[in-house]
């Protein structure tokens, strides 16, 4: 143990301690010995995972700050690879999904509002409330998670299982700098940009659907309603929230792929855990931002 303390830098393999098989074996018990025991195990599991994720997130932040300028010729292309995967290549799917979301929100809103004869008065407000503030960022995060978040866990889990982390360490390359940093930056930028495109697409398609449903609302009025409902705070929160979603997904998927000793057969289990935890993390983050709206 004394030797371990001598080690000043942090190795990604240190995280094995959180998930070493013998620490975890009792957490995997399916049949509860008693309900309190079952609950206790669940809570302990949650605490251990939260602790690991937090530590991993902080270490990643430390590496991003301290190695920001190290080896850009190697890491910058990796950022672009991630940006392409979590951004550019998702645009066709997002075009379709934004049209569908615009239709869903406007369709429902028109049906409800027409009962009160107020169809044309609140469409802009509803779009801002539903799409800009809530559905846009959350929907984008879920779609990016399902498309490239899962790919991250599988890719990194396989790399981990095949000893690539050790290979990088032997070459003096920090695995967090090489594997995690580009993914975090790429995904934050990707989710942020996609959210903007997604919201713009949904707002435009929303008008199109309203027009097709013969709502007596001119484009000028619609966009005026939108502009009136938006505040500066909306833009700030949108930017911060969507980037945070990207960072949370990247950190959680990388943690599950890299930070535990994996065999190839563990990769599917790691993916399931990463997806579930990413969704929970995004929803919790979203709740924090709703609090901000209430407080400010």
């Amino acid at each position, binding site marked *: 143990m004394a030797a*371990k303390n001598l080690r000043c830098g942090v190795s990604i393999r240190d995280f094995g301690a959180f998930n070493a098989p013998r620490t975890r074996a009792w957490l995997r018990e399916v049949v509860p010995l008693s309900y309190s025991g079952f609950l206790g195990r669940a809570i302990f599991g949650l605490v251990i995972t939260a602790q690991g994720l937090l530590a991993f997130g902080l270490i990643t932040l430390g590496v991003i700050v301290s190695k920001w300028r190290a080896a850009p010729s190697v890491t910058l292309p990796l950022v672009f690879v991630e940006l392409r995967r979590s951004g550019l290549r998702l645009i066709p799917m997002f075009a379709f999904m934004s049209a569908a979301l615009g239709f869903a929100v406007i369709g429902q809103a028109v049906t409800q509002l027409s009962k009160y004869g107020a169809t044309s008065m609140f469409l802009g407000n509803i779009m801002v409330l539903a799409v800009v503030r809530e559905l846009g960022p959350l929907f984008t995060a879920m779609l990016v998670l399902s498309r490239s978040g899962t790919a991250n866990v599988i890719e990194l889990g396989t790399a981990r299982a095949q000893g690539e982390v050790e290979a990088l360490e032997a070459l003096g390359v920090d695995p967090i700098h090489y594997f995690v940093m580009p993914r975090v930056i790429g995904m934050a930028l990707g989710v942020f940009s996609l959210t903007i495109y997604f919201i713009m697409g949904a707002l435009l398609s929303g008008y199109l659907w309203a027009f097709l449903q013969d709502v007596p609302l001119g484009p000028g009025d619609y966009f005026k309603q939108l502009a009136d409902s938006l505040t500066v705070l909306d833009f700030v929160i949108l930017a911060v929230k969507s980037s945070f979603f990207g960072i949370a997904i990247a950190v959680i998927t990388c943690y599950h792929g890299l930070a535990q000793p994996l065999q190839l057969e563990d990769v599917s289990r790691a993916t399931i855990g990463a997806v579930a935890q990413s969704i929970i993390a995004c929803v919790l983050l979203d709740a924090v931002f709703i609090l901000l709206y209430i407080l400010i």
Partner: protein
Amino acid sequence: MNTPASNDTVPVIEMNGVVVGSLADPDRVVLEEVNWTVKATDYWVVAGMHGSGKTDLLSTVGGLTPPQGGSYRLFGYEMPIFDKERLGERLRLGLVFDNGQLLHQLSVKENIALPLRYHRHLSWQEVEERVKTIMELTGLSDVANARPSTLARGLSKRAGLARALMLEPEVLLVDNPLSGMDLRQAQWWVNILSELSSGHSFLHGRRVTIVVTAQDLRPWRNLDCHFAILKKQRFIPLGHRPELAGHTEPLVRELLAETATQP
């Protein structure tokens, strides 16, 4: 104590009572009480049966797993030397894994270029010439753009050697280079390691300290090497070549078994 003596007589690797943990599970002890001194330009062959802890020993020597106990000094520095300031010392040591351990998302060429590009901040054009030379030397020119998963095991391992040599290490740790190799491949490995040991043109004629692990001592027994075996969690130095032939240790006799043909 973490300051090395300044003269050249400092051993490259100096282990006193080191307890080696497993790479897969660092809390499990694989070797106990390793007392071992490797001097600059030495050529060591460490042999042992399958599962005797050869890879774990090299992982500890290479700084991948911290020693569980005892004192280990590399170039006179107390190990493990993971912190940033010691990166220079760490890169003086190259590690070639049993199956190459290439990064699967990169091509063979990119794998080999990675250490130079990462540590020396060089562009692709600047490293290309060097990469080309090492690939010709290791017979990888034909598979330069292939993905590691499509390579035969022998070629993966050569790519691992090429990648380790790119940073021109002073010490080269090679894990089980001859496992699963045919006679010609085995001979290639023995030759290249001997050349590196006596000074290869790729490294400007500088002699490299080499530690090789093996499951079979026969290919090495005519070389001017130091020998050691791993047995029952012990590291047993056997001495130099002449002392090997008359050794009474049963495992040595087994590893030197005359029945099979020598490559």
